[in-house]
């Protein structure tokens, strides 16, 4: 019986690593896709022989699209040869016979439902029946049963997600929302470059965020001398282990601990509902060599020891810059930290990454003249940090308190360790 290989994200086919007729083992990589923020490898869901490859290099398809078929050697591919580009078409053609109506729609959508490795949605027979009666597409329903199975209660309690204006969803056309730029300039004086998928996503996401999220900003100046001193001590201590803690690691740690103390800023805005996250996962903006940006997530940053975090960050940043980071490491952030410290920046502010409700922009530590406690002038090391907040979720006073707490951690850095 032929088995479909289905995409679990939107993406553009970069490369087939297998040909029709090749035999593959379960887990073997058969294709590479350029997804929104990283290159993603698609693995064979089972042992078998490739019966058909349905896309051409460069083709862009949606999540749920069937891209290839696996089966026994010599078996005829189901649903005909050739490619089947449109997701809807693919779903219709390739839906296994026993599937009911609700499932047939499933592959075309990008909902939260748990799927099996071969792309089927996990739902109980009862959930399927109720969904069919109510006309609900199971692909949009999140499952609460064992292994993410959709059960009756999930279907009954399902409400179509309010499409928050704040949630960035890339418009299919690729032009930025509501904008017209007139005729494209031509001639020898210009070079026309296609906007990359990632650039387009960043453009659309930031426009949406900036237009629909009422940002406000609070800036403070921090005395980072103790922090830099402590960092030196730590690194001297950890030298044998080859671990090096960066200022950024310490800032992330401090931001995470502050988030823990201010759960309201660990809350995401979804129109008429707020989602308060119990885990503090700090997204860290990482600049990529090819003019891109990706937010690497440092999970449970409030509880992860600094040394462990340093190792993890180093690995993740390297992977991100090499374009090898997996989707799972850039999803699930609850708050953003953007650090331009290495670039000698006096101060800047960061655009919130919706549905997150806050972002911290950290500038460079600089030697500046300071007024000392005895009233005389001296030299100190100061760093500016700017907190961006979504005014729909929080207000100025809370932001100020957040920064106060953050300052206390940075200026008494031993607190990051104990």
């Amino acid at each position, binding site marked *: 019986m032929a088995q479909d290989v289905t995409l679990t994200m939107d993406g553009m086919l970069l490369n087939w690593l297998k040909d029709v007729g090749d035999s593959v083992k379960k887990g073997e990589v058969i294709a590479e896709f350029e997804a929104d923020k990283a290159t993603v490898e698609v693995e064979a869901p089972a042992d078998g022989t490739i019966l058909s490859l349905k896309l051409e290099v460069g083709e862009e398809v949606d999540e749920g699209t069937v891209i290839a078929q696996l089966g026994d050697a010599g078996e005829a591919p189901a649903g005909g040869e050739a490619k089947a580009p449109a997701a809807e078409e693919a779903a219709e053609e390739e839906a296994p016979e026993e599937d009911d109506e609700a499932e047939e729609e499933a592959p075309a959508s990008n909902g939260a439902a748990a799927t099996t490795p071969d792309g089927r949605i996990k739902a109980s*027979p*009862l959930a399927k029946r109720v969904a069919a009666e109510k006309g609900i597409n199971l692909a949009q329903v999140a499952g609460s049963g*064992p292994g993410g*199975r959709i059960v*009756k209660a999930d279907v009954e309690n399902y409400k179509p997600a309010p499409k928050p204006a704040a949630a960035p969803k890339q418009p299919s056309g690729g032009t930025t929302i509501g904008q017209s730029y007139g005729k494209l300039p031509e001639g020898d004086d210009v070079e026309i470059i296609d906007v990359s998928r990632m650039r387009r996503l960043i453009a659309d996401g930031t426009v949406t965020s900036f237009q629909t999220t009422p940002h406000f900003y609070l800036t403070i100046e921090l005395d980072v001398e103790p922090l830099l001193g402590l960092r030196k001590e730590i690194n001297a201590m950890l030298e044998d282990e080859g671990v090096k803690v960066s200022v950024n690691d310490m800032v992330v740690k401090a931001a995470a601990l502050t988030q823990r103390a201010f759960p309201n800023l660990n809350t995401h805005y979804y129109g008429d509902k707020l989602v308060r996250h119990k885990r503090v996962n700090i997204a860290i903006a990482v600049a990529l060599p090819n003019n891109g940006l990706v937010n690497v997530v440092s999970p449970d940053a409030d509880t992860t020891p600094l040394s462990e975090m340093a190792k993890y960050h180093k690995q993740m940043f390297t992977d991100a810059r090499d374009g090898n980071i997996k989707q799972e490491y850039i999803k699930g952030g609850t708050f953003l930290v953007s650090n331009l410290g290495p670039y000698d920046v006096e101060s800047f502010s960061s655009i919130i990454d919706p549905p997150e409700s806050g972002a911290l922009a950290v500038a460079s530590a600089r030697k500046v003249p300071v007024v000392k406690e005895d009233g005389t002038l001296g030299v100190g090391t100061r760093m500016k940090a700017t907190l961006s907040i979504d005014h729909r979720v929080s207000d100025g006073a809370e932001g100020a308190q957040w920064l106060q707490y953050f300052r206390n951690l940075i200026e008494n850095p031993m607190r990051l360790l104990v």
Partner: protein
Amino acid sequence: MASRNLPMREALRHALLEEMHRDESVFVMGEEVAYWQGTHRVTRGFLEEFGEKRVLDTPISEMAIGGVAVGAAMAGLRPVAEFMTINFAFLALDALVNHAAKIHYMFNGMFKVPLVFRAATGWGDQATATHSHMPEPIFAHFPGMYVGTPSNSADAYGMLKASIRDDNPVLFTESIGLYSKPGPMPDEDEDFILPIGKGNIVREGTDVSIFTYARGVEWATKAARELEQDGVSVEVVDLRWLRPLDTELIFESFKKTNRAVIVEESLPMYSFGSELAAQIQENCFDYMDAPIKRVSAHDVPLPYSKYLEAMALPDSDKVVAAVKEII
């Protein structure tokens, strides 16, 4: 109803006593039922009360006990024959399933076989593999024979009376672990008959149904109380009869809760649980919200070691774990 609190052995004794007084054609036979007054003391005082003609000691001869009972029933008596434990009823398998169960059909209704085989069943107490078994499902495999097994004193009383009065052969099995368990039971009551093939909802619930019988009811009820602390509402259904199976009650309960855990003391392969799971999925597929889960004894001959024996048997913790797997 509850006006006496008696262990199950006494409930069975009272049912037998009353039926023997009511109907002269009822007699008991088996190993040690007369002079020794019954291995499990169910026939205590019977010899004195009814005499040797109606209380018959037999040698260790299960095949003969089965054959005599079938012959007596065909001849118009109502024998209640006791197998000391159900394991030795295998020796009488031919009499039970090839004759008792089939005669009415084979002789085109010319003969009835109104007999009851009583047998102690169940395991525990380190009685080891040859003595420890709950093989009721084997007998329930054959059409023509009813198989019932009570979980408490009142049910034992009402179900045994119904079995003695019925014109069909009944295998009536009694969990050894329940003989000494006291429970409420009605006063002497000629009409306290629990109809054959009717189950009982022991505890109402909305999230998951536990289908079980005999000692399984105790484990299920305890598990249900624990699960209630976690906010899980459990319905416990005591089926009482493996044949006829109260499918109406089963399907009704399943349609309400959409989830099932089947608890059986017996072995898992080709078992009561297998049958029930198959029937539920065939008849209630569109009502299933989770896979059907079975809690059975382990698929091994029961070990002698006390600890290994306990590991091999179901208990309330295993029931709780099974429910949690599908909730």
